[in-house]
């Protein structure tokens, strides 16, 4: 019973440690890795962005037209309508290629490669 309890305690500690560690890593990443994508003249700049895991990507609309960021495979949550100067941010915690487009101007496409 004592062994079980200490194993349980060890387990809790492990879980706690494993929870804290990525959280610390993520918050460090948030301050260390933020990448900007400008929306200007109905295009994303840069069109393709390569970032390390944990990067917070921020889109900012520099156009007088609204734009809406939508993941091509619904891999991340869509933005609301971004009016001029509005921003939208997504933190990418898994590696992969994330294609996205503007739902109201679908010829506007971009992708984020997370490594």
């Amino acid at each position: 019973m004592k062994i079980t309890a200490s194993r349980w305690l060890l387990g809790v500690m492990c879980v706690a440690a494993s929870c804290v560690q990525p959280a610390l890593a993520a918050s460090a990443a948030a301050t260390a890795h933020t990448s900007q994508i400008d929306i200007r003249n109905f295009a994303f700049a840069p069109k393709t962005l390569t970032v390390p895991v944990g990067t917070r990507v921020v889109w900012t609309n520099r156009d007088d037209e609204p734009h809406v960021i939508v993941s091509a495979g619904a891999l991340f949550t869509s933005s609301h309508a971004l009016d001029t100067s509005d921003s939208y941010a997504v933190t990418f915690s898994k590696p992969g290629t994330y294609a996205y487009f503007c739902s109201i101007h679908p010829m506007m496409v971009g992708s984020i490669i997370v490594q």
Partner: protein
Amino acid sequence: MQNEHDNEISGRRQFLKCMAWAGAGTLWLMKGGVLHAQSLGDGAVASAKDASFSFVQISDSHIGFHKAPNMDVAETLRASLAQVNAQSTRPDFLLHTGDLTHLSKPEEFDTLSGLMREARTSRVFYVPGEHDVIGDNGAEFFRRFGERQQAGGWYSFDHHGVHFVGLINVLNLKAGGLGSLGAEQLAWLKKDLASLSAETPLVVFAHMPLWPLYPSWGWGTDDSAEAMTYLRRFGSVSVLNGHIHQIQQKVEGNITFYTARSTAYPQPAPGVGPGPGPMKDLPPGALHHYLGIRDVRHVQGKQVLAVTDEVLT
């Protein structure tokens, strides 16, 4: 395509010349599938006399937009409707070909509804623009302005022997694509037209251009060619679109395509400048020359519609 573009440019030059003569507006007469420009005056009155009915198209009111070159799009819509009300013959109805609002906000729809009540006409038919379906796939738009004939929102009706079809091409857009009608709507369209005789005049309206006007700016509809195969057997087909905030037209057999001006702000000619945003650097006082309404008269016994575009004065 080059030829088409040249035709469009020469039509536009002719149009601009007419504006210089008249200022108030231009009458577009379609004769044997070719548009003829003429300044508004006695000719316009005579054309109105032999019409069996008329309707007006307005488009792209973008309620909620408040930047250069138009800080008050409600006021320019109101002026457009006043111009409709000032027509010598009352139009049977209005068509609004989309982008009622700028951001699909409930308060923008409220403002639009309130303003449209100033139009002295019995009916207004609407189709949504991509600005009207943001965030909810058009649920709010269809709740307020939908015709409720089909689950997808598209519809048709007959008026004095002319068959009208309202299509939706701003939903379920794909990455890298243009406007989209979709398989379900195309199947409905085919069925809707099947029982009509080829002599029935057709008016088809949708927000985005139903021909590849300038795809690199998104000015077209991916599956419009399929829709055209259903329309081609008819003797007179007029396709009315908005979206590009300027007049462009094209004739393809018996099908004539038109885009309308906005009541809010102009956009540049295809490929002029870096993108299709608002034209901001207009000369002072010039805005109204870029905005306007379209008046369409049906002449009984003729296979053509007389189309008039008027600038705000």
